[in-house]
C-alpha cells in the first residue's frame, strides 16, 4: 500500500497540465467555445494520447497502454480546468466497449469513429413493458429474411432515443431457445419507416427517455454483434459499463461540494445553516460516505491497475451512490425550504434547481438495474449466495 503516486506518474501529470495550458487556455475558459473549437481540442487530446485511450488508432482512438492511474490523472486534470472529456452518451460509454469486445472488424471500422466524434448518437433499446428487472423476458423479435433482419416489437425507457439516429437493441431471434439463450444484440438505424418514437416525460419535466415501436423495421444481416443467441452475454459487457459509470464517486464529490456551498449560503432562523448542529452532523456523515466511496474507487483502480480480480466493490458502486444521492437530496430539501415547492424551469431563480436532484434521485434507484436487482447481484455474484428461485440478476 502506498498513498503516493510514483515519479513517472507525477511527471505525467505535469505533461497533462502543460498540454492543457497550451491547448485549453484558462483565460477564455468561460467564453463560448464553438463546437468546432471543442472538436479540434478533442482531436489534439487524442493525438496527445489523453482521450479514448483504450481505442486503437485505426478506429480513431489514441491506443495507449492500459494505465488506470494515468487515466484517472487525465480525468482529474481535465476536470480541474473544465476541458472537454470524451463525448458522453450511450454510444461512447456502452456501445464502443462492446464493439471492441465482441464486434466484427467491419463493425468497428464502420461505427466507432463517428460515435466517438459525437456524429452518431445511440439509443439503448433494452427494456420492454414486460421486461424490466426481468430483462431476459424481452419479446421484441427479429427474423432473418434473406440478407436482413426484420424486427417487430416495443421498447421502452429507451435512453436518448429522441436525439439518436441509431439504437443498439436486444431482440429475440431464437424463439424456441431458453429465454437467456434466445436473445441477439442488433444495431438498428432508426431513420426508416416502421420506427415510431414517443417521448416519455419524467416527473421533473425532463425527456431523456422514450418508447419505440418497431414495425417490420429492417437491419442488415451483418449488423448483429456477437453470434445469434449470444446477445445476453454481449449485453452484460454493456451493462457493466453503465453500472460503473453510475457508481462514479467523482460526480458525487462535486454534488457534495455544491451541497456544502448551499449550507454555507443558507440562513435559518437568522444564522447560517452550516452553524446548525443538525445540519452539521448530516453534512459530516454525507462527507464521510462520499470520501469512503472515493477511496473505494481508488482501491478498485489499484486492483485493476495490477490486473487483480476487482472483487466485491464494483458490484456495490451503484447501490452506494444511489444511497449517497438520496441523502444529499434529503439535506438539500431541508436547506432550500419552500424553494423546494417550485418546479425548476426556464425562469430559474436559484435554489429550486436542487428539486431535480431531490425528485430525480428516486429515478436513479431504478435506472440501470433497480436497487433490489443490485442487492441480488451483490448476494449472488459477490457473496456466492444461492440464486433466488426465479429471480435473476
Amino acid at each position, binding site marked *: 500500500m502506498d498513498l503516493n503516486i510514483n515519479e513517472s506518474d507525477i511527471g505525467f501529470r505535469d505533461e497533462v497540465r502543460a498540454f492543457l495550458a497550451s491547448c485549453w487556455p484558462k483565460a477564455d475558459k468561460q467564453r463560448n467555445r464553438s463546437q468546432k473549437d471543442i472538436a479540434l481540442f478533442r482531436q489534439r487530446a487524442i493525438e496527445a494520447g489523453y482521450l479514448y485511450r483504450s481505442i486503437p488508432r485505426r478506429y480513431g482512438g489514441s491506443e495507449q497502454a492500459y494505465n488506470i492511474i494515468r487515466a484517472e490523472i487525465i480525468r482529474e486534470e481535465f476536470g480541474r480546468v473544465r476541458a472537454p472529456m470524451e463525448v458522453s452518451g450511450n454510444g461512447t460509454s456502452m456501445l464502443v466497449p462492446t464493439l471492441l469486445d465482441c464486434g466484427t472488424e467491419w463493425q468497428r471500422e464502420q461505427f466507432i469513429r463517428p460515435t466517438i466524434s459525437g456524429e452518431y448518437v445511440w439509443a439503448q433499446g433494452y*427494456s420492454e413493458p*414486460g*421486461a*424490466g*428487472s*426481468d430483462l431476459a*423476458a424481452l419479446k421484441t423479435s427479429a427474423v432473418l429474411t434473406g440478407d436482413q433482419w426484420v424486427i417487430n416489437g416495443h421498447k*421502452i*425507457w429507451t435512453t436518448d432515443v429522441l436525439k439518436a439516429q441509431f439504437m443498439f437493441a436486444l431482440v429475440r431471434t431464437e424463439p424456441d431457445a431458453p429465454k437467456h439463450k434466445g436473445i441477439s444484440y442488433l444495431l438498428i438505424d432508426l431513420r426508416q419507416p416502421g420506427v415510431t418514437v414517443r417521448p*416519455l*416525460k*419524467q*416527473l421533473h*419535466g425532463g425527456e431523456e*427517455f422514450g418508447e419505440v415501436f418497431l414495425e417490420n423495421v429492417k437491419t442488415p444481416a451483418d449488423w448483429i454483434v456477437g453470434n445469434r443467441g449470444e446477445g445476453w452475454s454481449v449485453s452484460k459487457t454493456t451493462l457493466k459499463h453503465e453500472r460503473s459509470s453510475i457508481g462514479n464517486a467523482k460526480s458525487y464529490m462535486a454534488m457534495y461540494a455544491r451541497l456544502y456551498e448551499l449550507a454555507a449560503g443558507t*440562513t*435559518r432562523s*437568522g444564522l447560517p445553516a452550516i452553524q446548525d448542529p*443538525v445540519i452539521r452532523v448530516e453534512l459530516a456523515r454525507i462527507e464521510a460516505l462520499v470520501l469512503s466511496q472515493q477511496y473505494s474507487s481508488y482501491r478498485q483502480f489499484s486492483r485493476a491497475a495490477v490486473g487483480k480480480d476487482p472483487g466485491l466493490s464494483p458490484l456495490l458502486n451503484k447501490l452506494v451512490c444511489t444511497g449517497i444521492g438520496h441523502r444529499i437530496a434529503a439535506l438539500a*430539501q*431541508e436547506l432550500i*425550504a*419552500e424553494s*423546494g*415547492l*417550485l*418546479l425548476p*424551469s426556464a*425562469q430559474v431563480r436559484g435554489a429550486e434547481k436542487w*428539486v431535480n436532484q*431531490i*425528485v430525480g434521485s*428516486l*429515478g436513479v*434507484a*431504478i*435506472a440501470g438495474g*433497480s*436497487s*433490489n436487482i443490485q*442487492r441480488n447481484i451483490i448476494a449472488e455474484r459477490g457473496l456466492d449466495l444461492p440464486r*433466488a428461485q*426465479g*429471480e*435473476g440478476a
Partner: protein
Amino acid sequence: MDLLLTSEQEQIVEAIAAVLGDELPLTGGHPRRMTRSLWQLASDLGWIGLGLPMSVGGMQASTVEEALLFHKIGYHCGPMELLFSVIAAHAAKDSNPALCERLVKGEARAGYLIGTSLNPPWLALAMANAEVAVRLDANDQMILHGAVPLTSHEQICGLDPAVDTMSIDALPQILCVAPANVTSRGLLLVAAMEAGLARLALDLACEHAKVREQFGKAIGSFQAVRHACADMAVRSEAVDSQLAFAAASLAKESDSAFYEVRALKCLSIDAAYRNVRSAIQIFGAIGVTDEHVMHLLLKRTHLLDALFGNRSHQLDRLLAYPFPDS
C-alpha cells in the same frame, strides 16, 4: 376508551369516499384540480363547515369527523383549496362571522401563504381565486390575510401541478390573528391528508405488486417487494392510530392535544415520504414518469410537508412539550 368510528361516522366516510371517487378518479398522472362541481358538492354536503357551529352555517361535528374528511381527501390526492378554506373559516369564526359563513358556503375561498425566511419573496398557494389567505407566523400563530393585490405577484411554476403558485413581494393586509387552537386544527387536518396519502401509496403499491409479473410471477411474491409493502402497512397503521387519538384529544380539548397533534404531524409526514418513495421503487420506471399518478403523490407530499411548519420545525417544537401522562 374507544377509537372506533360510530356507525354515523362510518356513513360519513363512505359518503365522502363515494363523492371523491366519482369526482377525482385515480387514473393517469393528470393533476386533480378543484373543479366547479366538486366545489359545489363540497359546500352542498357541508364539508367546509363540518366542524363549525350552526350559527355560521356549519354542521357542528368535531375534529374527528373533520380528520376523517381530510384523510379521504388526502387518499384521493384531492384539491388543497378545501383545507385552506376550512382553516380560514375557523380563523375567522369569532372575529368575522360573516366572512366565516361565506367561506362555509363556498362563496369565498382561501389560499395559503408560506415563507420561512423573514424576507420576501413569499409563496402564495391557491390564491388565484381566493379572497383570503392563511399563514403560520414565527410564533406558530395562524394569521388571516386579505387577498393578494393583483399588481404585486408573479405567477410561477409550482412543483405540485394541481396547486396554483405565485411569488409575492409583500404580505397582504392582516385581517386577524386566529385563536391558538386553529394552529392545532391545521396541523391535524394536514396530517390527516398525509396519512390518507401514505395509505394510498400503500394500496397502489400492493395492487401493482399483485398484477405486475417479472421472472414469471407477480412481483409481490418476491421478499424485497412484499417486505417493502409490509413496512408501508406498519407505517400507515401507526399513523392512522395516532391520527384517531390526536383527533379525539383535540375534540375534547385535552391538555395534551398540542403534543399529540405535533407528534402526529412528525409521524404522518414521515409515513407519507417513505411510503411514496417505496411505492415509486415498486412501480419502477413508470413511477418516475408524469403519466402515472405516483409523481402527484410525491409532489403533494413535498407540499404538505411545508404547510403549518415542516418536519424539522415540528420535531423542534415537540421537544418543548412534556411527555403526556397516560
